């Protein structure tokens, strides 16, 4: 019983890391069909946001709230990655809808740029830049419609960008002068330390579980529930689903597909940021952190069935449980006196490297029989 519980928990823990990382991609790639190779780097931005937040909360004014920095950073990471995602959509991806190969190359280029960016720009000024983007992109949308429709709107837009850049530079220099660790560029990996209440283990029914793992499971669950509610219950969610199924028809019926694209992409990117917070709790934060997850993300989305959130959820937990079953050689402990050839085979695959090989092989075999994944999109899709 204890063994089963332990195994199940491990599987769920591994699966939830995969799921939280793949959730944003399930939306961007699954719903919009954009092959975003910069998804991993949006995660990386989320992870760096956690690091910056952690350091800022160490400042004397915020020190009393230090323990809650991780909660704050979840929201900040969503905003940071979301804003960068929106900028990406507005400048690059929008022009490339319907041409997957070009999108693939362009987003790969973006991923390299983002990696080099965090290596060579001091994080304080990086933060300033994100704040500029945030203000520059959103301030004009808050103007009353009278100004928006006026012919001089472009001047208003221009001046709000100037205001945004000034604020950005100011924030950058304030952070840079108050937190010395953020004032210099460094390619070195940095470390996010979970607040003390999140370290160590809790005991549930006689088995000890690491708290950070539980936290990641909670973050994942909340993200999945929130995104499901948003897609199925809200007006914008309905528009997103409509555009996904039939772009031209939705356009004709008065849905602003442009806005829908921005929102969808922004949410997908924001979720990547949340995933960044989660993975920063497990390992170190560095320019390459996203690259480690990107293949796994695509694997989960394809296995689950493109365009289906439930598929992504089941695929992640499926892979998680399989990883633990094979990688830790669980079958041997369940059935200790199995025939020798069988136990030797299981032992052979019971290493992390071989478990990975085995799982990829199983997925390839599975996709031979069901090329569209666990839950293929039902009904008639309009081909682009």
């Amino acid at each position, binding site marked *: 019983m204890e063994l089963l519980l332990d195994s199940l928990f491990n599987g769920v823990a591994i699966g939830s890391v995969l799921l939280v990382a793949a959730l944003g991609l399930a939306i961007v790639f699954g719903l919009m069909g954009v092959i975003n190779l910069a998804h991993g780097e949006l995660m990386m931005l989320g992870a760096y946001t956690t690091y910056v937040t952690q350091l800022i909360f160490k400042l004397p004014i915020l020190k009393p709230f230090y323990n809650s920095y991780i909660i704050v950073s979840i929201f900040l990471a969503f905003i940071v990655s979301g804003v960068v995602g929106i900028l990406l959509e507005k400048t690059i991806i929008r022009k490339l809808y319907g041409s997957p190969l070009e999108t693939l190359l362009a987003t790969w280029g973006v991923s390299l740029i983002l990696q080099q960016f965090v290596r060579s720009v001091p994080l304080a000024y990086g933060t300033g830049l994100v704040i500029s983007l945030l203000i520059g992109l959103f301030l004009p949308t808050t103007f009353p419609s009278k100004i928006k429709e006026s012919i001089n709107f472009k001047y208003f837009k221009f001046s709000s960008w100037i205001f945004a850049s000034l604020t950005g530079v100011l924030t950058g220099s304030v952070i840079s002068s108050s937190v010395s660790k953020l004032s210099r560029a460094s390619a070195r990996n940095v470390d996010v330390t979970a607040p003390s209440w999140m370290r160590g283990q809790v005991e549930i029914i006689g088995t000890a579980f690491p708290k*950070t793992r539980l936290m990641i499971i909670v973050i994942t669950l909340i993200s999945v529930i929130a995104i499901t509610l948003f897609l199925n219950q809200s007006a914008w969610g309905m528009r997103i689903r409509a555009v996904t199924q039939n772009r031209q028809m939705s356009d004709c019926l008065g849905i602003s597909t442009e806005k829908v694209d921005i929102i969808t992409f922004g949410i997908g990117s924001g979720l990547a940021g949340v995933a960044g917070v989660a993975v920063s709790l497990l390992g170190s934060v560095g320019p390459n952190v996203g690259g480690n997850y990107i293949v796994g993300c695509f694997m989960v989305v394809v296995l689950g069935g493109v365009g289906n959130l439930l598929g992504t959820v089941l695929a992640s937990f499926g892979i998680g449980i399989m990883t633990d079953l094979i990688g830790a050689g669980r079958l041997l402990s369940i059935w200790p006196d199995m025939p020798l050839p069988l136990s030797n085979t299981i032992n052979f695959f019971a290493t992390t*490297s071989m478990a990975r090989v085995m799982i990829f092989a199983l997925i390839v075999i599975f996709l031979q029989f069901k090329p569209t994944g666990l839950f293929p999109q039902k009904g008639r899709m309009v081909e682009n």
Partner: protein
Amino acid sequence: MRISRRILAGLATASLAVTATSCGGGGTSGSFDDTVTVGILHSLSGTMAISESTLVDTEKMAIEEINAAGGVTVGGKSYKIEYIVEDGASDWPTFAEKSKKLIDQDGVPVVFGGWTSASRKAMLPVYESKDAFLYYPIQYEAQECSNNIFYTGATPNQQSEPATDFMYKRSPAAGGDFFLVGSDYVFPRTSNTITKAQVKQLGGKVVGEDYLPLGNTEVAPIISKIKKALPEGGIIINTLNGDQNVAFFKQIQDAGITPSSGYYVMNYSIAEEEISTIGPEFLEGHYGAWNYMMSIDTPASKKFAASFKKRWGADRVVADPQESAYNMVYLWKQAVEDAGTFDDNAVREALVGQKFDAPQGPVEVMPNHHLSQTVRIGEINAEGGFTILEETGVVLPQAWNQKHPSSKGFACDWTDPSKGEKYKL
């Protein structure tokens, strides 16, 4: 004095470099008779850049020190050392390509370079076919002995073997079972083969072994295996690389695998630089084994650390790979001065037997092109350094490991033409 064509070419490029872009190092000084240009080849971009750039810094510092003390004196003439830095870009074929460039185009008499075994394996054929010289500064798995490479890092019998011995006999977990964890590439696998043979000799038991594919940070299955194999605590030998250590130590601490519950990790790839990245709060109480540790309390060691901090910033640290890199520049200088020429064969002969008072203590170049070194076992402390617990005398290097089944009974000796790369003892 016979001046080889390579030197002439080197001088030509050096003077060109000085007049054109000054890509060489240091300020100018009029007191030298001539200049000699050496090659520095490490990754300045890509995943290895973080580690390898510290070696470039150290090598530059050693060259500047030598120049400040009057340069290299060869045949009565004083030479100022200039350097050309090339970027291996964490990409192994690039290392081979840049080596060719340094040898053929720039005509350097020596290249200081490399970090990963993969980069060394890629460069080796280049240096052998051109009969050029590479100095390689990293502790590695050995099982190699080239006539064209000088290895200034530790071989397994100068690091992992004394460490395993310490863990089994004298650590708080003495007599316990072993679990081996490593990244999935050549160094951890070779090192663990040696450790397994040694543990068997000592009468201990290796109860498990697992390798994490490079880039993977999911440690959960390994943790469940460790808990299953060592329910009451024991010895963990860790050869994980780089970032994977961060994931490993964060997650094992959360899972209760800590020194206070009887689990002691001996690390072969964690030096002062890595401790500060991972965070001492995750590493305190675990162990490391190196030839050089920053906490060595001798004037030479203190001077080395102080000059590095003075040159590159007070928050910088020095560690074992940097010390090896520092030593190799000085050893090359001594050998060239003894040989009285930059000529390859003469320098190779002069280098064997060179002694140097390194920051770690005295080192000597052995006939198998490796160094005799001191081995130290340290416990990681809360300040991010090592508390040195044990110190061996000078340990001779074994290029062919005497515990590895494939190389037992073999050795390497380049001073005797009848012996060479691999001969039976």
